[in-house]
């Protein structure tokens, strides 16, 4: 379904992704792990089409079509969904207006008629229950005044509503307490389907206890340095990134300190 070949990307002239190769088939769940600064979020943003990142070489195809030449909204309409690590707050646009506009943009793209307000509300109410959000939130501004956990649940709610082909989850577990983690994981597991792929980006192993991946990849300094099955995540948990010869934050920070001391 998704084929990433030798992908290089940079931001403000600094190369972050240095040749990513990854094949994802429909029905699979992949986890990308790695220390902070390894390029995990950049990969997620590049796939979704954030033009703050410049793709300098390589290719990405989805269902055989060149993904990189499509605008962000076209990728979304073709089924790419990014659950943001830090969803933005947009006061003045209600969640309801936002989601309905989004759902109808997708329907329009598929040549289906728009959903009317009543139909939409019915669907929105049901799904908001599934992620344990009070439907009253629909009237508030997009993510406005939401706690970190509510924002993450709102992302999953949108994924459930839009039923993407490729769901990319960027640090969806960060900032969640154990109950919220359960709600979010149940939501993601509900997304698992034969015709859908899920790509999870995470720093920690704990999410993978709830959403069991088919493949785990370790990203370091812009490259995938190791791939394996779910046991790879457990091994990382036990032995840390240093086991793979990767500097993690703490070692990087302390070496920077000793450099400046010299």
């Amino acid at each position, binding site marked *: 379904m998704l084929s990433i070949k030798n992908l290089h990307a940079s931001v403000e002239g600094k190369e972050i992704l240095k040749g990513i190769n990854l094949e994802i088939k429909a029905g699979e769940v992949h986890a990308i792990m790695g220390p902070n600064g390894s390029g995990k979020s950049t990969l997620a943003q590049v796939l*979704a*089409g*954030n033009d*703050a990142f410049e793709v300098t070489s390589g290719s990405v195809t989805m269902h055989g079509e060149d993904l990189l030449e499509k*605008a*962000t*909204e076209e990728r*979304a*309409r073709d089924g790419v*969904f*990014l659950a*943001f690590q830090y*969803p*933005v707050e*947009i*006061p*003045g*646009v209600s969640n309801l*207006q*936002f*989601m309905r*506009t*989004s759902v109808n*943009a*997708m329907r329009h*793209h598929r040549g289906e008629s728009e959903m009317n307000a009543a139909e939409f509300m019915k669907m929105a109410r049901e799904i908001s229950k599934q992620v344990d959000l009070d439907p009253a939130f629909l009237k508030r*501004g*997009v993510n406005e005044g939401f706690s970190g956990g509510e924002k993450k649940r709102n992302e999953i709610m*949108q994924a459930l509503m*839009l039923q993407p082909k490729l769901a990319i989850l960027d640090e969806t577990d960060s900032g969640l307490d154990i109950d919220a983690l359960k709600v979010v994981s149940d939501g993601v597991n509900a997304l698992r389907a034969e015709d859908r792929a899920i790509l999870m980006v995470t720093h920690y192993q704990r999410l993978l206890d709830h959403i069991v991946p088919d493949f785990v990849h370790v990203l370091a300094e812009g490259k995938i340095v190791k791939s394996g099955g779910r046991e790879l995540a457990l091994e990382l948990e036990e032995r840390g990134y240093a086991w793979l010869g990767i500097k993690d934050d703490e070692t990087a920070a302390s070496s920077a300190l000793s450099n400046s001391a010299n």
Partner: protein
Amino acid sequence: MKPAPSLLSSAFLQPAGQALPAPLLALRKQRGAALVDMPMPTRKTENWKYSSKYLKLTDEMAVSLPTAGKTGSALAVPGYKVAFINGVMVPEASEYPDLNDILIQRFSDLSDAEASELAERLDSTLDAKAVQFAGLNTARFEDGLVIRLKPGAVLDQPLFIIHEVTADASGSAFPRIFVEAGRNSQVTLVEEFISSGQEAVFVNSVTEFTLAEGANVTNIRLSMGGENVQHIGATGVTQQRSSRFESHCVGFGGPLRRHDLRVRLEGKGAECKLNGVVVTQDTQHYDNHTTIEHVAPNCDSEETYRNIAADKSHAVFNGRIHIHPDAQKSNANMSNKNLLLSTGAEIDTKPELEIYADDVKCAHGATIGQLDKESLFYLVSRGIGLREANVLLTMAFINELVAQIPVDAVKDTVQIRLNQFFDQAFQEV
């Protein structure tokens, strides 16, 4: 040697119509005499600094536009209607019931005694020095309208005043309205400025409100004239004890748009709420100057203005709050936020606070920015088109103020005009 300052052309001091009662003719003449040698604003005139270059009056525009035989657009309104055409009220095009406690009269229908009383009060809500062009309206009005609400009078529906100029030829119009809201009276007055025809015209309007104790007045003002209309308008308000004035000014840009809004809180416990939305595009201009005078103690003022400028347009906001020495326990809040939709657009904002009392709460804030890139990315990442995402975010900037407009039909009119604005502002997106 300094070059001689440019003066208001004497052509602008020839009023039309002699149908007014003697005291008002005398007032008009007196104001006209005072304006001989009036210097035209320049970039060095502080309160016209950003706008003087847009003011382009020619002698062809000086003559009063004809009023005879004009009926104007047959605009249906959900309420009572008073039609002004080229600055003069046209009874045949107006529709409102005969009410005992609310009097709506043309200046020309007043008795000499009533006219004399009115002549005393005209301009009393405005400061002639600060609002230079209000005096020109008094020197030129051809007729005018006085609306008097007796104590306790409540108008059950909004009163729409449709100010139309028919610009089939060059000329000018000087609509004048004086509203006297008696004790505990209530009224919602909607003023819509519109135009037809394509010739260059000048509109110089003044609307005054005096609110007696406990009066409650809502004024909605829509400025929607064409690209051939230069409009300088002023609204003056004085408020007595425990009265409330609420204003919603929505302005669409033009070659020159200037609105001065002055509110004097003269009685204890009076409050005013001033909302303003301005959108400009192409090479349009719009300038809002507001002044709130906290004269009496325990008064509240809340002011919220938003400007959106696209293309190479230019919006100006100058908001002054003046708290007088006796105005203890004043509570004043002013917020002005500005959105630039292109790099060629310009917005100038200047909050001015003058505080002479020590026990007051006074806050102000002004910001200028562009649409947030992250928010745009978030919206398009959900399949929403870039154009629609731009519209959603721009609308979000003024949603709150549009939603507060208390007459639904006006809200709809505003939304239709805003959609036209978005269509053009984001056509290349």
